[in-house]
């Protein structure tokens, strides 16, 4: 097949589409976490990439130190890192509640530097391998391509968690409390709901989503201290394109952008790193509040 003067082999196209979907799964999980946190706390969590990286490291250490395998890590790592998130919220972010949101942003930015520096100090820039669990090793023959089972699992797991989160926030009573507390915290407190605890748990949940993505990523990309920084800028582009605070928007945009990146890798590889930002620039020109966001 020839397109734009490139000779494109179909297996390469499918392969890149698959990688695009995988990256999209991570973008969706991360931007979803950012959107959940933003909705409740009105801050952008710049430490999100660091928490993603720490999720992967948690999986690595659970296996190495305690022998707990991938499936335990999938549950425990988000809980552990989510607890770290809760501590961060209680210790630091809470104190900045009344100030300009720029200060909370700078705070999470500083925390990201601390976490990143600590891990880089002990593990250097190189990556550590994390084996694919044996239940998910191997590949399926789909007729037109081979699909490694683990990659299929990542896509399914990420979609399931994203959909579950959307369901909880938009369709349950807990979600209704949450949305109400976003609109008018004082009123919701008057009804006897412990809003500060809800804020802490929301932040912890957003962080846990990032850690979950980190565990999913561990067997695909190596466990590296720099893995969070590399992905964060693209996730920000996803959030800007989708529109801040839109749950569904951030999920959809994450997957679509991943696929578009994959396609770019096939047709014009030089631009594959920048395509997300170019799309962001175009969206900003046409719809400054994002595709799914409300204008303010």
């Amino acid at each position, binding site marked *: 097949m020839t397109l734009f003067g490139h000779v494109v082999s179909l297996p390469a196209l499918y392969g890149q589409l698959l990688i695009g979907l995988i990256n999209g799964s991570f973008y969706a999980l991360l931007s979803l976490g950012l959107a959940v946190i933003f909705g409740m706390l009105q*801050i*952008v969590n710049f430490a999100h990439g660091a928490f993603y990286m720490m999720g992967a490291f948690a999986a690595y250490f659970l296996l190495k130190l305690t022998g707990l395998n991938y499936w335990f890590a999938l549950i425990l790592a988000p809980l552990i890192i989510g607890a770290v998130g809760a501590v961060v919220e209680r210790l*630091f972010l809470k*104190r*900045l509640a009344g*100030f*300009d*949101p*720029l*200060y909370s*942003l*700078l*705070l999470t*930015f*500083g*925390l*990201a*530097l*601390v*976490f*990143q*520096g*600590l891990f*880089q*100090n002990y593990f250097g820039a190189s990556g550590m391998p994390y084996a694919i669990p044996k239940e998910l090793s191997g590949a399926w023959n789909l007729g037109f391509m081979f699909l490694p089972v683990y990659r299929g699992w990542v896509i399914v797991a990420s979609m399931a968690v994203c959909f579950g989160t959307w369901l909880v926030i938009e369709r349950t009573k807990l979600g209704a409390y949450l949305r109400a507390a976003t609109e008018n915290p004082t009123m919701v407190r008057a009804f006897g709901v412990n809003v500060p605890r809800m804020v802490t748990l929301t932040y912890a949940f957003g962080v846990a989503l990032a850690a979950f993505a980190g565990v999913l990523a561990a067997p695909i990309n190596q466990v590296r201290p720099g893995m969070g*920084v590399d992905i964060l*800028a*693209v996730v*920000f*582009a996803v*959030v*800007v394109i989708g529109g*801040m605070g839109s749950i569904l928007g951030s999920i959809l945009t994450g997957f679509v952008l991943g696929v578009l990146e994959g396609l770019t890798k096939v047709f014009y590889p*030089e631009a594959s*790193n*920048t395509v*997300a*930002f*170019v799309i*962001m*620039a175009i969206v*900003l*020109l046409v719809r*400054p509040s994002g595709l799914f966001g409300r204008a*303010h």
Partner: protein
Amino acid sequence: MTATVEAASARDFTERNRKANWIAFATMVALIAVAPFVAYPFFVMQALCFALFACAFNLLIGYVNLLSLGHAMFLGLASYCCAHAAKVWGFEPVSAIAVGVLAATVLGFAVGALAIRSFGIYFAMITLAFAQMVYFFSVEAPFTHGEDGIQGVPQGKALGLVDLSNPWALYVFVALVFLFGFLAIERIVQSPFGEILKAIRENEPRVISLGYRATLYKLAAFTLSAGFAGLAGATKAIVAQNASLTDVSLSTSSEVVLMTLVGGMGTFYGPALGALIVIAMQNYLAQFGEWVTVIQGAVFVACVLAFRRGIVGELAARAKVSL
């Protein structure tokens, strides 16, 4: 009666303010004059470039309350363009620097036009994303030489007269560039244009309702800030004789935020002092490797939690003047 008292105290304040600013300026010039005799001159010149970079950044955060998390793109692009002009096109240093400043200004206008319509955190995310785009561009583009960067940039004769490969000439040149940039930014902030910027910072809807096109003022401030950041980056290329990926990286963007925060946002002298502190920290803590990042992050957190005015801001508040 009260009116006269108030007028007198206002006059008193202006008088005290002028005095304090003269003292601060004289101290700074004296320090610049003495510095190369007590510290390694290359280090001082590096610090001066970053000081100018931080002053340019402060023009946005301090006076328009816009946080750019991608200011390294202007420093880095100007540095690359200046290095390319001096090395490949054989430009003398002043025109090479002009090329760098021009490139940064154009980039600043383009990014500003896209980013300026958004507020606060949105603005920070957009600038960060664009800076990352410029970073990837610098990795790929042929003229930047990717990981290697542009090495061995000739220092040449400024305007064909002064040979900058002489370390003393270079030092005086860099000091003059810094003072020019510093005074120009101070002038901008104190001009009627600067007053409108400060008014936008305090209450944008009111400024708009008074008939000013706030977006245009913000765009002008962003472009100016990018241009001065470019001046710092281009000068740095001549000083260090190279341009590298570090200059466009996210860590440089975060360092300039830290410098301004430590010194004091919205003060004239804070960013320069903050730059000196951060650069010194990097130099003297270099043997601790990645601990520098950890320390920088911790300083960030400490400043945000307990020291939001920064050093100069705190001093000015104690002395009841604005520096």
